[in-house]
């Protein structure tokens, strides 16, 4: 049960949202789909005085722009699955379609919310890093861009500063490269335990980003024809393994190599 009363705000532009946030960032929560925030408010883990809901702020879009796919912060997983523009990024679509929780969750939860939450044990961070995305964030003072690899700074930590909100994510369409996404879960309702996002060039060069296993996503390079080498590199790259209730870091590290291979196979 949500314990305390709060003010609910639904600004009609991203600028207005940024200004509202700037007024009192300390006791305000921004929500996309609210599938984290509302759950945590119910559990008493968050107790905001104000909630800014982005649903009317014009951020629910997915479009193609200059060889890239731009995803508004309020776009849902279902939006991605249905989007013609996103179809250029099969790894992204596979990721979105594979989010658990069924239609109810995928229709409501946003990629932006997942990115801002920064839980290592989730799909979005590894995928954004793996596809070389750039995140555009906005504050009352304007916008700035952050590379995904720099955005995820640690468990439940991101480069978002106080008073900033996420506006969009820009993912370049990797020309001439095959993409693959593979997710490993303990059971159907489990969080992602280890994910792999692979880009494989025509020459067989492969880049794999492992998500969910390390405190920050890690990227290794190698060759699609030497999967064992890639697997060893992936495992070695897990230098600060992530642990939570479902799985400790040691286990995640042990399977990272296998997941890297499977991501490459998903691409080829």
């Amino acid at each position, binding site marked *: 049960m949500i314990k305390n009363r709060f003010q609910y705000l639904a600004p009609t532009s991203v600028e207005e949202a940024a200004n509202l946030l700037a007024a009192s960032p300390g006791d305000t929560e921004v929500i996309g789909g609210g599938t984290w925030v509302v759950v945590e408010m119910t559990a008493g883990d968050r107790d905001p005085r104000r909630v800014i809901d982005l649903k009317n702020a014009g951020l629910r879009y997915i479009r193609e722009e200059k060889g890239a796919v731009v995803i508004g912060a309020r776009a849902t997983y279902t939006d991605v699955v249905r989007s013609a523009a996103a179809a250029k990024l099969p790894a992204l679509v596979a990721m979105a379609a594979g989010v658990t929780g069924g239609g109810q969750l995928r229709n409501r939860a946003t990629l932006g919310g997942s990115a801002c939450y920064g839980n290592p044990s989730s799909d979005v961070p590894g995928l954004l890093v793996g596809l070389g995305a750039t995140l555009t964030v906005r504050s009352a003072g304007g916008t700035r861009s952050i590379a995904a690899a720099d955005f995820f700074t640690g468990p439940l930590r991101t480069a978002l500063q106080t008073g900033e909100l996420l506006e969009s994510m820009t993912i370049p369409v990797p020309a001439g490269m095959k993409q693959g996404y593979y997710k*490993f879960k303990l059971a159907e309702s489990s969080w992602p*335990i280890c994910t792999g996002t692979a880009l494989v060039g025509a020459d067989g060069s492969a880049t794999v980003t492992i998500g969910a296993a390390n405190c920050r996503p890690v990227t290794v390079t190698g060759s699609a024809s030497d999967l064992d080498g890639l697997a060893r590199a992936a495992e070695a790259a897990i230098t600060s393994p992530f642990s939570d*209730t*479902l799985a400790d870091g040691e286990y995640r590290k*042990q*399977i990272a190599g*296998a997941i890297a291979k499977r991501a490459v196979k998903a691409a080829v």
Partner: protein
Amino acid sequence: MSVASPYPKAVPEANRYIGQRSRKLKGDQFLTGKTEYVNDLELLGTVHMSVLRSPHPHARIRNVDLSRVRQDPRCISALDGEEAKQHADPIPHFISAAVFGGKYNDVRVIATGKVTYRGQIVAAVVAPSRGDADALLDLIDVDYEVLPFVLDGDEALEPGAPLLYDTEGWEDNVVIRIPFVEGDFDAAAAGADHTLEDTFYHHRYSTQPIETRGYIASWDPRAEAYTLHFATQNPHPLRWVLSAALRVSEAQIRIIAPTIGGGFGLKMPGHPEEGLTCVFSRILGKPVKWIEERDEALLLGAREHFHRFKVAFNADGKIVGLRNHFTANVGSISACPGWGMAFLAGLSFPTGYKIPATDVVVTAVTTNKAPWQAARGYGKEGPQIVMERIIDLVAEATGIDPAEVRRRNFINKDEFPYKTNSGLNIDSGDYHQALETALKLLDYDGFKAKQAAALAEGRHIGFGIAFELTPESADIPGTIVGGYDTSTVKMDPSGKVTLLTGVTTPGSGNDGGIAQIVADTLGVDLDGITVIQGDTDICPYGFGNYSGRSMVSGGNAALLAARDIRVKLSKVAAFMLEAAEDDLVFDQGKISVAGTDKAVAIKDVANVIYTLAFATAHMVEPPLEATRVYKPDNIVHFPDEKGRIQPYPTYSNAVHVAIVEVDTETGKVDLQRFGVLHDCGNMINPMFVEGQMHGAAVMGFGAALSEECKYNADGSLAADRFKTYMMQRANEIPMVEVEHQVTPSPFTLLGVKGAGEAGVGGAAGAIINAVNDAIRPTGARLRRTPASPIHVLAALKEAQ
């Protein structure tokens, strides 16, 4: 085996309900969301309770300060443990360990003095809304003296371990130690060709009905009586519990159990919140509501056993001796019946196998985990998993096929009733035939070749078998767990039938099954029968729902009551039709004279009995109401010469088979096929039996693969929601392929045995054996549940 038929002159076979897949009563309401659960009820003036739970697994409560919360305008009432003591006595234990020579500890609606688990209630508040009540908890100040704690069962047994209870008699943390010893194990082991020793850890998991617990207590100051709308499985026994705790007579309590959204044991009595809502309602004179949150429901666990066993067997696979001394970590002491699962785990060895010498000792130990609550399987699931592991280990050691080892050790069909070493008297069965049918279900004979072919490609598939014996419909002497039950059948002057029974339905459909029995006995239409359950003021005394008992006790009681009604109808109809009673046929709402076209509507006969009591119906006693009890045979509470009792009338059995593939890189188990041959005697409604088996099997999948009450090192519950307590979902499970074998019970009127509990342990056992079969070529062995990727990979790494 002859089975008493409900048909003195049988309803023509084509028109019988018994044995039919009749639809669930009120099924349309469930499907269309019209069913009302306790949380849907809105009584005028209802206020809401929330409870403050201890953040420490073990602490002395120095002081509870309610002054800040009482100053808040939202606070309607607040209580701490000492204050609650003035309103309520300790909650009687539903099954007290003291009855069996174990230890006892007072359990109160709010803890006083000490808390022994994280999550124990230390104070409670009432406010206009649940949100307000939750917010008020932040204003309660509790001063604790934190004490050292112990979470592990074996550690709790060590000298010097923190003692949970400092009351008299608790010189250690042992709740009870129960031996089940028969024959001379050491001699058997010395004379056997081989022995093997191993361990098995059966982890802590629970049952999670989608509807959690919920209570609305309402004290009427004028009537000086409570009306309780409680989501409970056992209204009458709960009334007894509450009357003792609340210092009122049972007549001052009316419990009305609304439709409940699953029970599985969780909703059996003894929970502190039951009495607590009553205490507040009496203080306030208003209805007080409390609905359990999921993290509260997940506190209650079940089954955490560590088995250390030694098996003596001969080269031909015959087992001659079993020693298993195991611990059961029952968590903290509660008034709920959970701990009793440890007792029945010991009692159920060695399931359906003939083992001359058995030395089984269970030690129930209390720790600073939250208490156990009853969970479907009620202790029998542990022995099922462990015995089936043991059989496979013997097969491995002797090189004999695991199915063959089972054949060589099973009780034979001509040996029933069979008395086991622990004193159980198994009614009937044909385990050999059951095994053959189950093996065919998943083509056991063809599997070896498939397995070899898969292995050649580097894939690890495995086949697992588990026999399951499920003692059901218990009567535990000296406790409020009864094995008999009561049903009332009434036919009103318009010929409609109302059935009231002391058994309740947790959603399983037993109301419909019992109605089928009555419809056939009276020759009336099923749709015309109204079933009322769960109201202590209008239903006859009964024990509600547990232990696969509804058809055995309530169903047979309804049969007897319906027969009494039928006798009256028959006498009057014979007079009206000028025929002999023996010639009457009851069918489709009519009583007719066999071989003629003479007939009278049953409703007309009913009307005559009410309106012409001094004329046409002078020979029978009106009204058309009968209440009967059914006490099944085979329960024996007078101890035999060895001091053993026999608390179960029926023993259903099943053989479960599973095929899995293990991903050896990640340890993940893919359950590919699952089948079960189930024998619960005569079936009133095979669809309901199958529905129960589907549900139980999937619970077993969860037990074997993913459900786990994980704790953090600080004593807090780590798995406190469905993202961390992982139930199985529809899209990860295979079809549950069910086949039936019917070996009627010679000890119940309708030849029925219990159904509903069976499935959890058998399904889990088959999967654990299948996983072990799959990883055997790697040299690895899984000695625990669940077979989650993490534990399977650990086993594989250990073998490397």
